[in-house]
């Protein structure tokens, strides 16, 4: 056993119950923090210089990452993880979730900050832009997504990692938190489809 162990509940009470190996992991990967700091610095510089290309680059790359991660987690990885045997699920979770702790906040911040600045630069966020209702719709969708991500997804992400760090993690707690994480990611993934529709429509206006 490496770090902690989860006893399998349904095993017969003969001898010591088999335990799941939990690999050692950092809740917040240090390397990821450095990369996030670089991305944050890039956003600050892009907002300061207010030039089209850096803003567009950060908004499109951040938005693409955000959309794809949400869709992939919610609609592809979630069901796969649900079907995995517990040992494989624990191994996968301890490798995936620490990365998500760093990736999602910076990707969301990068997308929204550069997107807002891009909207100011192009005038699309101003109420006198002819297609302003599309921008308003995107504000509302992003607002709902933010509340779900901040209120459900991110806390579940941190909580499951801290539970896995305990000497005796409780499988039922991990199960509950992972369900909450995956359902939230699924809802966000579905809302990302609406974001894709709105953003491509906005980009295609003459």
């Amino acid at each position, binding site marked *: 056993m490496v770090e902690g162990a989860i006893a399998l509940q349904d095993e017969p009470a003969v001898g010591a119950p088999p335990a799941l190996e939990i690999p050692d992991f950092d809740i917040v990967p240090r390397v990821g923090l450095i990369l996030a700091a670089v991305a944050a610095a890039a956003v*600050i510089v892009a907002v300061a210089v207010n030039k089209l290309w850096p803003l567009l680059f950060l908004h499109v790359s951040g938005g693409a990452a955000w959309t794809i991660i949400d869709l992939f987690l919610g609609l592809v990885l979630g069901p796969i993880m649900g079907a995995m045997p517990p040992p494989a699920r624990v191994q996968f979770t301890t490798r995936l979730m620490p990365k998500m702790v760093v990736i999602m906040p910076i990707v969301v911040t990068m997308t929204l900050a550069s997107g807002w600045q891009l909207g100011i630069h192009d005038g699309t966020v101003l109420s006198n832009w002819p297609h*302003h209702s599309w921008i308003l719709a995107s504000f509302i969708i992003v607002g709902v997504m933010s509340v779900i991500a*901040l209120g459900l997804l991110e806390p579940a992400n*941190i909580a499951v990692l801290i539970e896995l760090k305990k000497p005796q993690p409780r499988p039922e707690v991990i199960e509950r938190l992972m369900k909450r994480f995956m359902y939230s990611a699924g809802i966000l993934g579905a809302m990302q489809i609406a974001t894709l529709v709105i953003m491509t429509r906005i980009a295609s206006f003459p």
Partner: protein
Amino acid sequence: MSERQLPPFTEVAMTSLALIVAGGIYLSAHLPRHVPLTPAIILLAASVVLMVVNLASLARVSDFAWDRFFQVAKWSGLAYLVIAGMIEYAFLQNHVKGGALVILTLSLAVFAVHVPALVGFTVARFYEPSTA
């Protein structure tokens, strides 16, 4: 899993966050026109009231894992302070000023307090002192 009786912290926190998000959308939807601030002030005030009530109701829970709550909320708070700072920087860079800046700054303050508290709560609620 034994469940302790806890206040509906997550639900109230999400409502509080939704109110400041609604206020932010209201203000940004009217740019660059002059916008009446009253609806945004009402939304912010309601959000602050919910946050205070939420934290107060949690403070009344006697056997809550406060050590774990503050341990997580502290680091989470640092991260969300950085994010709030970046958003505030974007406001200042775009010459947001006056009442709108005050409302948006206070909204960010609610965000930077309530979200870390929510993360701390989610961790601490599953923490049993006997497993320390």
